[in-house]
């Protein structure tokens, strides 16, 4: 990813808001879009999400960075330099800009759209074309297919990908994204969010990202600035901090009564200390399997293939009296969870399935261990994840259960 199209170039810039205020003269306070004494600092290479109800001034704050709106008071520093001291067109050409409606140029082809800023910067048409193709590839659009199409021929999701490609074309150290995924359906939004996070791993841009959706803020942000109407900063911190310790009632209400659940979307299955179970392969002698089953408190054995990929469960009490184990003996599978799945997705999968045990696999499908609803519930209560079978009614031997607990 990093090398693709030479996309990894300039490192991110630091962004600093210093007591930034924007007043609209219609009234003293409470005008939608006004910003009041806003200060925060975004380190280089981080995604900072500005989130809040409509009219809280988050978009105004964003547009003051590239000076589509000028502040009434205060300063915004980019790598330590006040943006108002820079030439405005130079400043803007050095900042990627993505908006909700995308704003692709309808009269330019996709390739030309991506290369727009490069053209403004005076790149040769040869280099523009090469770069545009590399960028289309980077955002998952086959250049040969898309380069010569017009924006009206693309779906909403494809257009937004082009919007992102266009914004990173000149390799800006800072990107401003104003509700970039607000106009696409939830499935496409989720995919675009994941793609942006994946891209960011290689790009390490500084990104200011505006949304009104707290879930999106938590998912996308390394840092989250919660704003309230009147353009005041209600809380600034990591998603974990915002969810676990809301600064006041407003933040607590804004993040929602389900903030405990939301914390689950911050953790990944692979971050848990997974419970290990006994693996057996087809062909294992029943007697040997029984021995293994008796030594292990978990009431099932996991049948795996030669690559340690799960085939299914064999309940201890249904092990054959003699002979060898066979793939047909395995009962229906637990849900398979990728180690990168969030705990939120894992929980929802587990609750949807008959068994409340998920098998965690890595990218190649190799078994890493299991996760249970109880492990997740325990994490929610603030404790450390527990290991099966603490308190589980069907634990094989009480003694082992206790030993395995906490």
């Amino acid at each position, binding site marked *: 990813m990093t090398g693709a199209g030479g996309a990894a170039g300039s490192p991110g810039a630091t962004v600093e808001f210093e007591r930034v205020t924007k007043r609209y003269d219609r009234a003293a306070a409470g005008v939608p879009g006004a910003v009041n004494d806003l200060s925060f600092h975004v380190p280089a290479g981080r995604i900072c999400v500005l989130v809040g109800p409509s009219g809280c001034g988050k978009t105004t704050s964003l547009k003051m960075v590239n000076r589509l709106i000028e502040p009434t008071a205060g300063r915004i520093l980019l790598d330590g330099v006040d943006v108002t001291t820079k030439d405005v067109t130079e400043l803007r050409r050095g900042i990627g800009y993505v908006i909700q409606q995308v*704003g692709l140029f309808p009269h330019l082809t996709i390739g030309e759209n991506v290369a727009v800023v490069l053209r403004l910067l005076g790149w040769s048409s040869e280099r523009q074309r090469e770069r545009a193709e590399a960028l289309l590839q980077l955002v998952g659009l086959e250049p040969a297919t898309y380069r010569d199409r017009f924006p009206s021929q693309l779906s909403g999701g494809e257009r937004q990908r082009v919007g992102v490609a266009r914004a990173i074309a000149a390799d800006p150290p800072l990107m401003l994204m104003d509700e970039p995924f607000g106009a696409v359906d939830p499935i496409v939004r989720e995919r675009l969010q994941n793609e942006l996070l994946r891209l960011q791993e290689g790009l390490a841009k500084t990104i200011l990202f505006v949304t009104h959706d707290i879930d999106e803020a938590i998912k996308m942000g390394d840092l989250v600035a919660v704003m309230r109407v009147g353009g005041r900063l209600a809380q600034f911190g990591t998603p974990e901090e915002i969810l676990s310790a809301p600064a006041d009632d407003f933040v607590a209400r804004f993040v929602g009564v389900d903030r405990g659940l939301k914390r689950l979307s911050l953790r990944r299955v692979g971050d848990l200390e997974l419970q290990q179970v006994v693996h057996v392969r087809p062909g294992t002698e029943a007697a040997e399997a029984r021995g293994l089953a008796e030594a292990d408190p978990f009431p099932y054995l996991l049948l795996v293939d030669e690559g340690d990929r799960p085939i299914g469960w064999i309940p201890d009490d249904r092990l054959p009296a003699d002979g060898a184990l066979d793939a047909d003996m395995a009962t229906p599978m637990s849900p398979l969870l990728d180690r990168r799945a969030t705990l939120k997705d894992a929980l929802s999968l587990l609750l949807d399935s008959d068994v409340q045990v998920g098998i965690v696999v890595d990218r190649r499908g190799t078994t890493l261990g299991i996760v249970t609803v109880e492990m997740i519930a325990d994490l929610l209560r603030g404790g450390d994840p527990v290991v099966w079978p603490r308190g589980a009614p069907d634990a094989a031997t009480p003694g082992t259960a206790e030993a395995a607990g906490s």
Partner: protein
Amino acid sequence: MNWEWIAGNLGQIVDATVDHIVLTGIAVGVGFALSLVFAMLIYRDRRWYSPISGLTGVLYTIPSLALFAMLVPITGLTLVTAEIGLVSYTLLILTRSIVSGLDGVPADVVEAADGMGFTPRGRLARVDFPLAVPLIVAGLRIATVTTIGLVMVTALIGEGGLGNLMLRGFNFRNYTAVYVGAIVTVALAVVADAVLIWLGRLATPWSRAR
């Protein structure tokens, strides 16, 4: 229909047609140039909108014969008189079509262009105008077809292209000349409209892409 007359006066018919085209071309060309200036004034500062649309609106409502009658004492029976009238009638339509074309550029496109660092002039030339082309072409089509009809009237002050041919036909009861004048004028209008449609499509391949 007197085919012999047509055969014998082909040169005159061709001359009248060329005159007609030239009168129309000058009128639409000058009218478009003036309208561009008006539209730019309005684009820069909205306060120009009322006075300019008032002026062009008044010019448009003056009956053509009355306008020529007013102009003859000043500029005489000349091409200038004819063109002043013809140009006046194009201004309302052309100014409005350019302004609404520029106004019609989607807000998100404007915001993206500004945010990416287009200079105001660069945006006008490379974003706003190209996107205004369909509406501008629509205005040009109406202005051109209207002017082709109006050129006829200028026969009364000694110009008129094919109108002149028709006028003389009436005077000498040569109805073949009247028919020829009418038919060729209609043909001119149809062809001019088709050419403009074609040029418009050539300039906006994106507008048909689906």
